[in-house]
């Protein structure tokens, strides 16, 4: 079973059981320090393990993050950062080349 927050990636990969929480990436088991929420999500996951009968079963937890700003902010591309991202890409290419030269990439 997978517990996660990237619904399209996980469902496209096709998994047996998926507990989806519609939160920003990083806290699929519940908001930090919200023990009641985390306990509820864990128990929903255990329910899904017991109750699912077919592959590609997705259950969405009922929790809301509280605001929607993260939906548009994460990985946003607009006129305010387009040039910055282009330059970051150039830096990344140099880092990758250096990493490869140092042998710090996983063998194929």
């Amino acid at each position: 079973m997978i517990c996660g927050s990237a619904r399209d990636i996980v469902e496209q990969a096709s998994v047996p059981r998926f507990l989806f929480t519609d939160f920003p990436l990083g806290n699929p088991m519940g908001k930090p320090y919200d023990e009641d929420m985390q306990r509820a999500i864990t128990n929903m996951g255990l329910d899904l393990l017991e109750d699912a009968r077919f592959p590609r079963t997705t259950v969405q937890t009922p929790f809301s993050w509280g605001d929607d700003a993260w939906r548009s902010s994460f990985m946003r591309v607009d006129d305010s950062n387009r040039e910055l991202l282009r330059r970051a890409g150039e830096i990344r290419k140099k880092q990758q080349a250096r990493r490869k030269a140092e042998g710090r990439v996983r063998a194929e």
Partner: protein
Amino acid sequence: MSDQERVVADSAYRAFVSYIDKSREFYDAQQYERPYRWARHDESPFTPLAKPLSESRIGLVTTAVNLDLPDDTDTEKLPVASTFAAPVEPVPERLFTQSRSWDKEATHTNDLDSFFPIHHLQAAVEAGRVGSISERFYGIPTEYSQRRTNDADAPKLLELIREDGVEVALLVPL
């Protein structure tokens, strides 16, 4: 309100985020030459529980790294990622997550149980809901190469969890 915010607020558009679309546009802006081809399968394996969950051993799998490092660690200096198993006891105080692509503006991962629910699983065992937790937890790299995932990391993970008699695997990716 920006165009993107307007779309998010408009119920004529899908509510949940498409990370496939977002990451394609984001990496295109960074001059990646080809869009990433995400794993896609027409079928999925499915195995019903062989015995009640209350008699089963559960193993917890994370994409975090089993290193206690400060958040500002230069991720370029990290060792090359690999699949691993590490003792559940004592529970690690923290796991290193900064090299993973979670939303670092909207939230944090300072609370282990928000992405690594070990304490809640332990409580489920104490309550008799789950039979036991594996003595080790498991980590698997976030890997762009699906070939490496299929041919190296997944078989290694399967080997590790079978060594420990795990009957149910719970993967919580960041």
